[in-house]
């Protein structure tokens, strides 16, 4: 009886009910049966609880050394940078510094500090703190290691008065426009820390941003408290909690149960499921993350000694571009990401309007014909018995190994498409799965033909494009190197990169970066498959999350604090969020589910009958 009711309900709810029945009834009972845990109402305090997968990757919260994205995300909430990324378009915007200028030669930069800026302990933030921090980083091997492109060109830092900082460089540097978002530390506290590189993140330290650290249980939980003394607009709630979850699936269950208010990095199915949960809203927005194919474009040392065992035919841009011609990115996005992405071009995602290059009419057309013509014209006309083209120079067939990560099924699915598509070119791909560690080792040693890679762009193009310079692509010694992606070397590109890094003008710099992307797009050391969307869920009780860019972007994993800091509770008391009706519905669902567990087979029969016409 109940079953047929389930079947008559909408397609999705029937599926949902049946699904829940198959073992997840407990979770449902929790979600529906237990009254909402009202995470944001913890003893009268307004608390925003964020679920995080990957909080257990790191054990310290050193604001001067954030290697992990989540580490950076949390530190960004506590420390206001000198200049921040503008929420509108990622353009450098005032932070602690309200305005800055550079000398015509781009070597002398003067920063004017906002007189309102103060630490959470009430002391003013001055240019002396900035000088202290820059000198500290420059003089500390460990800390300087993660900020080389920032501190390397600096020859001197002076603070002529409390509100002015003058930085002198030995060569012009565009990075000084945003100082790489680095955090300055209070001299009155940090001058007493003996080993700043070993700072773990201590609760109660004075901060400059919207939050201070209240509790830090490494790998488990981070609690931030609103900075009452914040010199900009203070946040509209009391505490921000980051709670670790071992798997995304567990976190989704917690979200459905109302234990957390926010969760990022969902996959399309999880987002769809949460979207259907009452009281949960979804943010689907472009992000700065991309996935790509990397070619071994001829790994060798500066003196020409061969590295690894890459296929010689992949040194030829024609072969790489021919492969580009058969990759139907729209289809990949549709089939694998469920439409949650935009087709890839270069390293820069479209959310960076200053830097993103739109290929326009130069867009590589999806056409096996065009690919074949490219190969024919380049001299790959002979074929072996299996119909595979032969490289006229090395006499080897165009049969490439394709390395993919054994723990990322999405890549494995892309592999299926690639293998099928390149066949039309008379090219063979031999897929080989490896665990990430050995796969990266092979990549560093040049022991691959084609492999997968992922990237989070910048937002400073200088550091990212350094990976594609000859300096990196042609290492000095015949040793594995993690500093290059495709072992690529192109002199025109290098010239532009040098110019780009040194360009102090943001607009001019953007133009150079666009020209660089055009070269890369033509030469194809890598093929960017897609920029996938950030899929994030938040409780309907909260609103106002600040996306970056503001026109539509991610809430989490920002290189700023907008996402969480701008959030606030929906007006009125929390009971009216539309939740009241959901528990009965879900309990009914669970009851249906329980029956379905027992009568699963009956359900099958029912479903088969109702959709019999599909055969």
């Amino acid at each position: 009886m109940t079953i047929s009711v389930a079947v008559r309900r909408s397609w999705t709810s029937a599926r949902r009910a049946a699904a829940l029945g198959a073992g997840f009834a407990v979770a449902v009972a929790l979600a529906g049966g237990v009254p909402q845990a009202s995470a944001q109402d913890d003893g009268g305090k307004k608390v925003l609880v964020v679920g995080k997968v990957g909080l257990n990757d790191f054990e310290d919260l050193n604001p001067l050394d954030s290697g992990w994205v989540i580490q950076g995300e949390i530190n960004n909430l506590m420390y206001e940078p000198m200049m921040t990324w503008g929420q509108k378009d990622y353009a450098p915007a005032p932070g602690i510094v309200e305005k800055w200028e550079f000398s015509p030669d781009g070597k002398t930069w003067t920063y004017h500090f906002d007189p309102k800026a103060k630490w959470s302990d009430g002391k003013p933030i001055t240019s002396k703190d900035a000088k202290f921090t820059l000198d500290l980083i420059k003089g500390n091997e460990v800390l300087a290691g993660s900020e080389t492109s920032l501190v390397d060109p600096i020859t001197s830092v002076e603070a002529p008065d409390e509100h002015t900082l003058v930085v002198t460089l030995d060569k012009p540097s565009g990075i000084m426009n945003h100082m790489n978002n680095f955090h300055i530390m209070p001299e009155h506290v940090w001058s007493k820390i003996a080993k700043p590189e070993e700072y773990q993140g201590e609760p109660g330290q004075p901060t400059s941003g919207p939050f201070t650290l209240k509790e830090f249980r490494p790998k488990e939980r981070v609690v931030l408290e609103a900075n009452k003394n914040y010199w900009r607009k203070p946040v509209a709630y009391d505490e921000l909690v980051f709670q670790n979850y071992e798997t995304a699936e567990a976190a989704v269950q917690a979200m459905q149960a109302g234990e957390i208010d926010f969760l990022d990095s969902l996959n399309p199915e999880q987002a769809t499921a949460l979207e259907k949960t009452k009281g949960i809203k979804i943010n689907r927005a472009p992000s700065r993350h991309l996935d790509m194919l990397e070619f071994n474009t001829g790994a060798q040392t500066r003196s020409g000694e061969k590295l690894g065992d890459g296929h010689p035919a992949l040194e030829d841009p024609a072969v790489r571009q021919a492969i580009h011609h058969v990759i139907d990115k729209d289809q990949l996005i549709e089939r694998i990401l469920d439409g949650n992405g935009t087709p890839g071009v270069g390293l820069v995602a479209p959310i960076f309007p200053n830097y993103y290059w739109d290929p326009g009419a130069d867009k590589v057309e999806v056409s096996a014909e065009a690919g074949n013509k490219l190969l024919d014209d380049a001299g790959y006309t002979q074929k072996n018995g299996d119909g595979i083209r032969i490289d006229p120079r090395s006499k080897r067939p165009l049969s490439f190994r394709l390395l993919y990560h054994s723990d990322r099924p999405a890549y494995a699915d892309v592999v299926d498409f690639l293998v099928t598509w390149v066949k039309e070119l008379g090219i063979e791909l031999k897929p080989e799965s490896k665990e990430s560690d050995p796969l990266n080792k092979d990549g560093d040693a040049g022991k691959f033909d084609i492999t997968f890679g992922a990237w989070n762009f910048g937002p400073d193009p200088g550091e990212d494009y350094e990976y594609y310079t000859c300096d990196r692509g042609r290492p000095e010694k015949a040793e594995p190197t993690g500093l290059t992606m495709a072992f690529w070397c192109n002199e025109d590109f290098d010239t532009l990169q040098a110019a780009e890094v040194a360009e102090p003008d943001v607009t001019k710099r953007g133009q150079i970066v666009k020209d660089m992307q055009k070269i890369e797009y033509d030469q194809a050391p890598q093929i960017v498959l897609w920029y996938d969307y950030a899929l994030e869920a938040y409780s309907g009780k909260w609103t106002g999350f600040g996306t970056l860019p503001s026109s539509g972007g991610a809430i989490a994993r920002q290189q700023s604090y907008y996402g969480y800091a701008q959030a606030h509770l929906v007006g009125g008391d929390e009971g009216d969020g539309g939740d009241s009706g959901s528990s009965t519905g879900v309990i009914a669902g669970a009851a249906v589910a329980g029956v379905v567990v027992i009568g699963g087979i009956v359900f099958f029969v029912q479903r088969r009958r109702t959709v019999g016409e599909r055969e």
Partner: protein
Amino acid sequence: MSTTESPPPPVPADVIKSSGSERPQSARAIVWFRRRAAFGAFCRSYAKHTSGVIGLVVLLAIILATVLAPLYTDRADLNAATAPGGRMESPSGEFWLGTDRTGRPILTMIVWGARVSLQIGLTAAVIAVAFGTVVGMVAAHYGGWLSWLLMRVTDWFIVLPAFILSIALVVALGSASKWVIITAIALNSWATTARLVRAQTLSIEGRPYLERTRALGAGDWHQMTRHVLPNLMPLVLASATLRVSAAILSEASLAFIGLGDPRSFSWGIILARAQAEGAVSYGAWWYVLPPGLAILALVLSFTLIGRTMESVLNPRLRDDR
């Protein structure tokens, strides 16, 4: 199967006596006659164990389903580029167990996945048991420092946490291909067999007839292959059957944490994919339950068969009442 050339035969004495009139003449024929008789007795005894029969039927059904898979399914359905279904379709008349993210039918995945799971499970078990048997026999037969050395190595492998070792091995060996997984599983599951075989070999070699063969001039090779091994076989076979279960579970566990070829669709891989694709959140029970139940059925069938063989072949466990 259970070859018994020398005493003590697990064949009840009356079997041979009752058919005495038909006893053939040549020595070879006698041996084969006794083997047939022993096998017959084994089968009759096995058939008395309902659980063993159920296990065997389930196993045969699984093997049949996967061997005949090309006749009723299309391997191309498992290619994301040519998958026939829509995204995460729930079960229907066309796709009995629904589809995955790229539209692959889950049922087809499971049917073809059985090949991978069985192949890895069987091969790893055979390698592990064969290796363990050789080590155990050599250690028991030669004794002395060789035995000491072999047993210390065995102990070392026994005390190491097997799963952690497997993970380390797969990562160290680089590739997550089928053969690497097989090697990793085999390498950390041979030790218990070695211990078992060593003990049994010692007990067999203590029997008087082996003293006789030695007196008659039999060499090490002859003793081990003609007298010790045949007597070990029942034990080894039962042990191997149980090892298969363990190997299948190991493979599934490794696959689930991302160590395995995601394009191979072993049942562990299917579960790992379901996890990665958010099947539980989505409520795609058809993606999670079937591979789990399939693993359960296969492992259970091997365990039932192994336990039954053990109790039939080991006189001490036999309950022919």
